């Protein structure tokens, strides 16, 4: 016998059938079904295979707590490899299939693993797979274990992001939540209500209670009908972050499967009210993981909310009154129901159950579920101690309720053990949060309602104008009786179903002296699956307490962390993927570079031409050609990304002198100086050229990627250390375009711009600048070089960048003008030994290591980082120093990062590494820059070092870190 769809009842629309497939078989459900309720209604019992032992598993729960029913779901562009069948609403055309099981879920070859279960205890990974090493086994194990497979193609779903704020955010739209929302609205509070199911009302929709003389579901609809606030349904609050920021994932229902899928909300609330309800706990008995074993409340939910009767001979094992609620609902729908209660007597509800034909076995226990691929019978120990077997197709259990304290715990809240209800309940939280109803361990409806109103009263005293007539006293109840694990039961009893953790695994951990609950979790993997132990955590703790002879609170509880349910990474990313992931700056003349066929790459957040290949030229040939063109004629480089920070004010000179390593107060107006900016640790943070435009006006050119960082440093020092100085800083980088014109023909080209600027070496020597007008626009012309050639940097308004670039390109045709990218620039500067910060230097490099020791002795003021250069460590003679290397095989280019090594006592020791390497087309040999211990001594001794590159050793000669035009003849003209 399998489940049946009832002709009436439930929150489904029988007029709207929905077609879907399960493992390729076409099935039908109704609008309002979840994937789980539809599969049950179609007679599906085995929904997957377990994680470790490949045992057949069925649907156990009806919500986010479901440990077994993970399925592979494809719908239009949507693909979810581990969709939780109990929370996904069924839609037309969904293709659903099993995520594990080969060749199929009903006959799984790896099911033989179950026979070897005694060899796969907790911690077997750590104990068994260390010879020869874990990697040897990993492939095979990963194939057998694990969950669904993600597709390798791009996820084409669209995810939206929303931000909102409110006075009160109420999470959970059950009884407590809707009452709190009504009260909050009546108090004039800006309110948001979030509910993870499609309907408000929570358990009231299926519990079958009567409230205020009305069926509970009707009562709930009446309260919820008039909620004049933002209500998000199908929306799960998954994360509680600092200062009351809540992350909510809203599933968007659309008829078009190619449309948006989900919205990620960030809601900031003055007050949070948690009405998150509770999760039912299962009871333990042998083989409690067989398909057909489920939670009692889930069975009730399926029959009342979805019109699916899960079986027709049902045994309910319970230790508390709520098992009887399920018994009544299932018996009313036509099932033959037996309640097996561990207690001698239940509350008033027992009588009501017996009136609808439920048979009750008091002081009795379920010992074992019978049946391999589905429950066929149940073994019971009666109150007389005898064992009986009852035929059954469903074995449901209720072991009490655990408040859903996950979000409260995420808020930083502490939990407290309550002996009356056998639960962890919320205690104190550092955040503005209140917990009401079942989430607070308050299971009585009347008490829950007054808690809701009291919570809003506390937030807005004397403002709440909504109230309800006091509910009549509910019937007499009898308290839950603790039953965690019955030591008389033999056979395997599952605690964590998703991760396949049994009672025996916990017992093993206890016998191996794992005392801390955090260690227990990691050793056994209890509670560490994607359901985060919603059904298993408390049971695991209680068993640990029982085994180690401690009270449950002494064992402690684990800290819950976001997310409460798995959240798609795509939703987290929203629209921030592809080109929007980390948008890059474009150069003002970007389109000109595109027209020239540039190959673009990212450099420090800028999308810049790496090189400009011609026809079928490869990267190497292109770079060599561009470099040669600069030294032979003239090259054009778009240097607009170079930082431009104006420093102005009466104290500008004095301030910069305190900040920079080099002397700047004595720099003459109209001159430039190459400078280092250090950290207080003495480490070189940035390098660049500083220009003095006037007595009280400087212009800094930090590296493209350091502009913001340099500005931050300037502001920090000014605001915190030297606030009385009159100086201000302005980032002008994006206001101007800069074109670098380099090569022996650069002056000839500039002269054609007809600016009237005197370009003679007397008027404009190397490291000087001037201003003028070109093409009707004010320009700045600086003579500065990063190639070793005569070179100029021409700066104009950003909007003119493209016009100037194209005009210069036209003017230079007969001079062999060549656009050059960053890669050939990098080669040209390496030939000259000019460093790149972060490439040739690292977080330990001091100015002296780069051969710039002058300012340390010459400059008297206490500049940033100076003290650190006077420590014994900064003055060690064996520090790594920048030098040049010439490999003996002068055509071989060693990789950047290759180490220079010494053989010491038969082992290799690194004495440094290569920081830049290239083949120089001008010298026709390989050149390297390297940071080597005591490097300058090696240069003086004309010594050789051994280079270790990708497993091979070669030798190289230590030379000066300048390979080309050491006298600077070309630079100065």
């Amino acid at each position, binding site marked *: 016998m399998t489940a049946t769809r009832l002709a009436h009842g439930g929150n489904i629309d029988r007029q709207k059938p929905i077609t879907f497939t399960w493992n390729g078989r076409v099935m039908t459900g109704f609008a309002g079904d979840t994937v789980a309720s539809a599969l049950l209604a179609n007679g599906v019992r085995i929904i997957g295979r377990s994680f470790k032992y490949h045992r057949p598993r069925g649907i156990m729960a009806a919500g986010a707590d479901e440990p077994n029913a993970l399925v592979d779901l494809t719908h239009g562009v949507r693909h979810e490899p581990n969709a939780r069948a109990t929370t996904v609403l069924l839609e037309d055309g969904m293709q659903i299939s099993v995520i594990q099981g080969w060749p199929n879920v009903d006959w799984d070859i790896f099911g033989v693993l179950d026979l070897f279960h005694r060899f796969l205890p907790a911690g077997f990974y750590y104990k068994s797979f260390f010879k020869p090493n874990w990697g040897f086994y990993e492939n095979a194990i990963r194939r057998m274990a694990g969950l669904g497979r993600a597709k390798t193609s791009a996820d084409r779903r669209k995810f939206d992001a929303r931000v909102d704020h409110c006075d009160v955010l109420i999470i959970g739209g059950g009884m407590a939540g809707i009452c709190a929302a009504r009260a909050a609205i009546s108090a004039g509070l800006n309110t948001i209500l979030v509910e993870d199911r499609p309907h408000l009302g929570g358990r009231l929709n299926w519990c079958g209670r009567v409230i205020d003389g009305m069926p509970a579901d009707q009562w709930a609809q009446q309260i919820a009908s008039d909620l004049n606030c933002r209500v998000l349904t199908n929306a799960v609050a998954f994360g509680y972050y600092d200062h009351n920021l809540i992350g909510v994932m809203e599933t968007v229902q659309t008829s078009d499967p190619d449309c948006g899928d989900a919205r990620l909300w960030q809601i900031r609330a003055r007050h949070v009210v948690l009405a998150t309800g509770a999760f039912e706990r299962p009871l333990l008995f042998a083989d409690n993981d067989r398909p057909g074993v489920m939670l009692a409340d889930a069975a009730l939910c399926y029959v009342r909310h979805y019109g699916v009767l899960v079986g027709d001979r049902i045994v309910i094992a319970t230790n508390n009154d709520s098992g009887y609620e399920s018994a009544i609902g299932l018996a009313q729908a036509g099932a033959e129901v037996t309640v097996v209660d561990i207690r001698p007597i239940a509350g008033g509800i027992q009588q009501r159950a017996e009136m609808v034909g439920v048979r009750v076995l008091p002081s009795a226990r379920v010992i074992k579920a019978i049946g391999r691929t589905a429950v066929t019978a149940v073994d019971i120990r009666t109150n007389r101690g005898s064992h009986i077997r009852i035929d059954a197709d469903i074995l449901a259990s209720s072991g009490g309720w655990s408040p859903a304290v996950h979000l409260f715990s995420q808020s*930083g809240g502490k939990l407290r053990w309550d002996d009356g209800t056998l639960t962890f309940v919320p205690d104190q939280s550092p955040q503005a949060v209140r917990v009401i109803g079942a989430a607070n361990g308050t299971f009585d409806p009347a008490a829950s309602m007054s808690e809701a109103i009291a919570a809003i009263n506390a937030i807005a005293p004397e403002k709440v104008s909504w109230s309800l007539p006091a509910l009549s006293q509910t019937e007499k109840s009898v308290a839950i009786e603790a039953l965690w694990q019955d030591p008389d039961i033999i056979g395997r009893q599952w605690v964590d179903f998703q991760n396949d953790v049994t009672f025996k695994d916990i017992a093993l951990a206890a016998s191996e002296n794992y005392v801390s609950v955090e260690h227990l979790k990691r050793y056994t993997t209890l509670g560490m699956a994607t359901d985060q132990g919603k059904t298993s955590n408390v049971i695991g703790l209680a068993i640990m307490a029982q085994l180690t002879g401690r009270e449950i609170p002494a064992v402690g509880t684990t800290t819950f962390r976001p997310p409460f349910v798995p959240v798609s990474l795509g939703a987290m990313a929203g629209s921030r993927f592809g080109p929007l992931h980390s948008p890059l700056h474009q150069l003002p003349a970007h389109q000109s570079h595109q027209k020239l066929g540039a190959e673009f790459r990212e450099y420090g957040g800028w999308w810049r031409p790496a090189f400009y290949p011609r026809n079928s030229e490869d990267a190497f040939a292109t770079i060599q050609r561009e470099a040669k063109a600069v030294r032979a004629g003239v090259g054009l480089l778009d240097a607009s990304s170079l930082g431009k920070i104006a420093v102005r004010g009466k104290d500008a000179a004095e301030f910069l002198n305190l900040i920079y390593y080099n002397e700047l107060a004595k720099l003459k107006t109209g001159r430039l100086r190459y400078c280092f900016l250090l950290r207080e640790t003495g480490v070189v943070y940035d390098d660049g050229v500083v220009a003095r435009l006037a007595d009280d006006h400087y212009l800094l050119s930090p590296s493209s990627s350091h502009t913001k960082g340099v500005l931050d440093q300037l502001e920090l020092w000014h605001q915190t250390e030297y606030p009385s100085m009159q100086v201000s800083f302005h980032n002008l980088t994006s206001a101007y375009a800069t074109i670098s014109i380099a090569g022996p023909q650069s002056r000839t080209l500039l002269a054609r711009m007809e600016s009237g600027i005197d370009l003679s070496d007397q008027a404009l020597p190397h490291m000087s600048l001037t201003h003028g007008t070109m093409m009707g626009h004010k320009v700045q012309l600086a003579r500065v070089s990063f190639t070793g050639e005569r070179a100029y940097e021409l700066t104009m308004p950003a909007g003119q960048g493209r016009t100037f670039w194209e005009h210069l390109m036209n003017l230079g045709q007969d001079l062999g003008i060549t656009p050059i990218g960053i890669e050939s620039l990098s080669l040209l500067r390496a030939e000259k030994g000019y460093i790149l910060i972060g490439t040739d230097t690292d977080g330990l490099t001091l100015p002296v290591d780069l051969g710039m020791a002058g300012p340390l002795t010459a400059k008297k003021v206490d500049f940033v980082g100076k003290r650190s250069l006077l*420590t014994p460590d900064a003055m060690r003679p064996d520090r790594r120093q920048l030098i040049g290397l010439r490999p003996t095989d002068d055509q071989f280019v060693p990789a950047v990062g290759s180490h220079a090594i010494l053989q010491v006592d038969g082992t290799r020791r690194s004495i440094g590494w290569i920081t830049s390497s290239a083949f120089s087309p001008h010298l026709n040999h390989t050149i390297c820059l390297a940071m080597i211990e005591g490097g300058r001594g090696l240069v003086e001794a004309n010594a050789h070092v051994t280079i270790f590159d990708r497993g091979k050793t070669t030798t190289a000669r230590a030379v000066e870190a300048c390979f080309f035009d050491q006298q600077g003849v070309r630079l100065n003209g």
Partner: protein
Amino acid sequence: MLIIPCPWCGPRAEQEFHFAGEPKARPVPAEQVSDQTWAHYLYHRSNEKGAHRELWSHAHGCGRWFVMERDTHTHQILSTKAPA
């Protein structure tokens, strides 16, 4: 994510701010202090559990630096004020 009350702009989201650690008084004149004093200034931090002083800048707002007192355990913000 924190809500940080900028002394000049009022409460704003944490993404607008930039964090620079515990403010340390710079020992001056630096050249005359011992290596040990200098090392303390550079590398030693109090790492309090509880009330803790920190330097923040409202980088994507007014651009100003300020000193914030924050409880490192509860993440409560106790005060923000201009650097001394």
